[in-house]
C-alpha cells in the first residue's frame, strides 16, 4: 500500500513538471510584463527597464525557469511581484476559501446527486426518474455565471435574504485558525459567525454544485442500473434479502465506484474552475487570485498557484484511486 502510494506520488512528478513548464511558457507569452503592471501607466521607459532588471525579467527564459524550479524544489513558492507577499502566505489565506467552497459544493452535489440517482435508478422510467434526469440535464446546461447572477438578482436584490458576496458580513467577528470559516466558527464556538458563513456559502455553493450534482446524479443512476442488472443482485434477491439492503448495500457499494472517480475529478475541477463563481460572488479564493495574477502578469503567482492547484488536482485523484482500491477488494496494491 505504502509502496503503491509512493510510486504513484513519484509518477506525479513528470506531470507536475509538465504543468509548471506549460504555466511558465504561457504566462511569459502573454503580452505585457509585470514591470508595467506594477509601475502603471505613469512609469517611464527607464524605470520600467530598471525594474525589469531588478526582477530578473531580462534573463533568458531558461534561467528564469531554472530559478523558479529551484525555489519550488526548496519548498519556496516565491513572492508575488505585485504584492511583494510570499505566495505561500497568500495561499494559506485563499486556498481554504476555495476548498471550503468546493467541499461545500461537493457535499451538496454528492448528497443530492447520489440520492436522486439511486431513486431514479430504482424507479427507472418513473416520473421521478424522468424529472430528476431532465433537471440534471438542465444542471449541466446552465451557464454558472448566469445562474449566479440570477440567484443574486432573486435572493439578494429582490428578496434580500442571502448575502450577495464575500465570506462573512462586515462586522461579524471571527477568530480565524484554519481559514476554513465554518470550521473556525465551530472551533471557537462562534455561532453567529457560523450562521453567517453558512449563508454566504449557500449561493456560490449551489452555483458551483449544479454541474457536479447533475453529473453525479446521472452517473449514479446509470451505474446503479448497470449494477442492478448484475448477477449478484439476482443472487441477493434469490437469497430473500430485503430490498433496502439490496439497494443500499449490495448495489450502492458497487455503483459508488465509478461515481467516486467522477467525484474526484469534479472536485479537482471545482478547485481550478471556480474562477467564474468566485468573481461573481466576490469570493476571495485562489480562482480569482490566479485570474487577477494573469491579468497583472504576476508571473510567480501564476506559476506557483497553477502548480499548487494542479498538485491538489492530481493528489485528489490519487486519493480517489486509493479509496477506490479500498472500496474494491478486487484491486490489489502490488
Amino acid at each position, binding site marked *: 500500500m505504502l509502496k503503491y502510494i509512493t510510486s504513484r506520488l513519484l509518477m506525479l512528478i513528470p506531470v507536475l513538471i509538465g504543468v509548471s513548464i506549460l504555466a511558465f511558457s504561457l504566462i511569459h507569452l*502573454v*503580452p*505585457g*510584463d509585470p514591470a*508595467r*503592471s*506594477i*509601475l*502603471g*501607466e*505613469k*512609469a*517611464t*521607459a*527607464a*524605470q*520600467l*527597464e*530598471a*525594474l525589469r532588471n*531588478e526582477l530578473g525579467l531580462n534573463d533568458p527564459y531558461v534561467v528564469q525557469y531554472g530559478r523558479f524550479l529551484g525555489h519550488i524544489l526548496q519548498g519556496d513558492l516565491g513572492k508575488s511581484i*505585485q*504584492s*511583494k*507577499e510570499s505566495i505561500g*502566505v*497568500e495561499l*494559506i*489565506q*485563499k486556498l481554504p476559501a476555495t476548498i471550503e467552497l468546493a467541499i461545500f459544493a461537493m457535499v451538496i452535489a454528492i448528497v443530492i446527486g447520489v440520492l436522486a440517482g439511486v431513486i431514479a435508478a430504482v424507479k427507472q422510467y418513473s416520473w421521478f426518474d424522468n424529472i430528476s434526469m431532465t433537471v440534471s440535464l438542465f444542471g449541466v446546461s446552465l451557464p454558472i455565471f448566469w445562474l449566479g447572477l440570477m440567484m*443574486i438578482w432573486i435572493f*439578494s*436584490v429582490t428578496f*434580500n435574504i442571502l*448575502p*450577495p*458576496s*464575500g*465570506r*462573512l*458580513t*462586515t*462586522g*461579524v*467577528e*471571527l*477568530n*480565524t*485558525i484554519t*481559514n476554513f470559516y465554518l470550521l473556525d466558527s465551530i472551533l471557537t464556538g462562534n455561532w453567529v459567525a457560523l450562521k453567517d458563513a453558512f449563508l454566504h456559502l449557500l449561493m456560490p455553493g449551489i452555483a458551483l454544485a449544479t454541474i457536479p450534482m447533475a453529473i453525479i446524479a446521472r452517473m449514479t443512476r446509470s451505474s446503479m442500473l448497470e449494477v442492478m442488472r448484475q448477477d449478484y443482485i439476482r443472487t441477493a434477491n434469490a437469497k430473500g434479502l430485503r430490498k433496502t439492503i439490496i439497494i443500499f448495500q449490495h448495489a450502492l457499494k458497487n455503483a459508488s465506484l465509478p461515481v467516486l472517480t467522477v467525484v474526484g475529478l469534479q472536485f479537482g475541477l471545482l478547485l481550478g474552475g471556480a474562477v467564474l463563481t468566485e*468573481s*461573481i*460572488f*466576490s469570493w*476571495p479564493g485562489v480562482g*480569482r*487570485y490566479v485570474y487577477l495574477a494573469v*491579468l*497583472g*502578469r504576476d508571473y510567480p503567482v501564476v506559476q506557483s498557484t497553477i502548480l499548487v492547484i494542479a498538485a491538489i488536482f492530481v493528489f485528489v485523484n490519487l486519493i480517489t484511486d486509493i479509496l477506490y482500491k479500498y472500496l474494491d477488494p478486487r484491486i490489489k496494491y502490488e
Partner: protein
Amino acid sequence: GDSTSKSNNKDNGGGEKTLVFGRGADSIQLDPSKVTDGESIYVTNQIYDTLVRYVEENTEVKPALATEWNVTDDGLVWTFQLRDDVKFHDGTDFTAEDVVYNFERWTTSAEFTYYGYMFGASEDDMGGIIEKVEATGDYEVQITLSEPNAPFLQTLAMPPFGIASPDAIEEHGDNYFKNPVGTGPFVFKEWVPDDSITLTKNEDYFGEVAKIDKVIFRVIPDNGARFMELQAGTIDIMEGLNPQDIATAEGDDALQIIRRPSMNVSYMAMNMDKGGPMSDKLVRQAINMAINKDELIALYEGVGKEAKNPIPPSLWGFNDDIEPYAYDVEKAKALLAEAGYADGFDITLHTFSNPRPYMPQPKLAAQAIAEMLKEVNINVEITESDWDTHLATVENGEHDMAFLGWTGDNGDPDNFLYVLLDKDNATVGSAGNIAFYKSDEVHDILKAAQVEMDQDKRTELYLKVQEIIHEDAPWVPIAHTTPPLAAKSSVVDFVPHPTGSEPFNLLDIKK
C-alpha cells in the same frame, strides 16, 4: 497577513464609530512611495502626511508637516519650516532628518515610481531635478533643484511623498509595506489581504483628530455586489458605482450619491505616427465632427461632462473659449472627401475591458463611436483587451485609434499637457503621448511654461497650447468624469477630493 486574528468591529454599544469603505480591489502595498494604484494611495493617505497637503476642495496647497516655506527667485532652492510637535505612530519624533531620509530613500530604486516620474529620475540620475535635500536645522529642510519646477509644491502634496518613519522602515525592511508607520490621522491596525484593511484613529494627530474611531476598507470586487452590500447596510460608503445604479441610489432615502470633482480626461487618441488617414488633420477633425458627444456622454449616465480640451475645467489654465467641434456628419463627410477619403476606410479602435475612473464603460463608448463613424463610411474594428495588454499595445503605437484617459496627479496643467501631448513623450515603447503628436510649437511653449514661475504667464501659455491642439486635433477629447461614490445618508462631511483620495479625519457618521 496574520492568520490568528481577524476582526471586523462593528460599533458596539460603547458608541465606537466605524466607517466601512467598500472598494473594488485591495491595496497592493501600504508604502505610498512605491505604489501608483489608487487603492493603495487611498489608504496611505490616511496614514501618512506630506510636507504640504491639498486643501479640501482643490489642488491648492496648505501647510501640513511643513508650516511655511519659501523659494529663491531663481526657483531653485526651497526652504521648509517643519512642525516640531509631531510624532510618528511608532512614537518616534518627527524631525528634518526624517525628511532627508525619506527623500534619499526615494532615489535608491526604480521602484519609487512617482518620485522618478514627477522629478524626472533616470537610471543614471536617480535624483532627477532634485539636486540635494539637506536638514538645515532640527525642523528646517532645504531642497535644491537643478532647474526651476513650477508645480513643485503641488507635487510635494501628492500622497506618494508621504513621510514615513525611518525607524519603522529599518525595522521591517522588506516587510515595511505591510507595516506602514506615518504621522497621519489614522494608525494602521490590520491587513487581511483581499479582504480588509483596518485603521484606527490617531488620538495624537497634530491636525484635526478624526471623529470616527475606525475605518475598515473592504474589498468587494464586483461593483454590483458592492452596491448591494451598501443597500443591505453592511458597508457605509463605496466607490466604483455602476452608472446604472446611480438612479437606484438616488431613489433611496437611506443613500446619497457623492460626486467627486473632476480632475481627469478621457479621450480617443488618433495615431499620427502610422501614416494613412490618421496623419491627415482633416480626417482627425472629421472624426471629431462625426462623433455625437451628447449621446456618448449619455452613456456616462450623468457621471461625466463633455470634454473639449485635454485638461479638465477645474484646472486653472483651462481654455473655455475654445468651441468644440460640433456634431455635423455632413461637414465631416465633406472634410473626408477633401482629404480623399470619400469612400471611407477601415480602422482599428483599441479599448480596454476594466473600467477606469475616467471611463466607466469603455466597451460601450467604443461601440457607440464605431457605430457613429459608420455614418461617415469609416469602418471601425474594435479590439478590447485587458488593461496591461492595452497599455502595451498603445505605447507601442500598434493602434490606429485608442481610448485612454488621465487623472491629474498634482493639479497642474503641465501634468496633463506635457505628459500627454508633448513630443518628448511620443517615443514608441513608452509613450504617454499615444497620438504620437509631435508639434514643435507645442513643445516649445510647454517647455517654457515648465520653468516659468509666474502663474499668470503660465496660464497664457497653456491657453495658447490648447488652441493649437484643438486645431491639430490629435484626440477626440471625450469626457471629464465626476466619479460617483454612494454612501449611507448618515455619512456627513465627506468632501471628495479631485485627486481621488481624501483624508477621513473630517467626516463623521451621524446616528
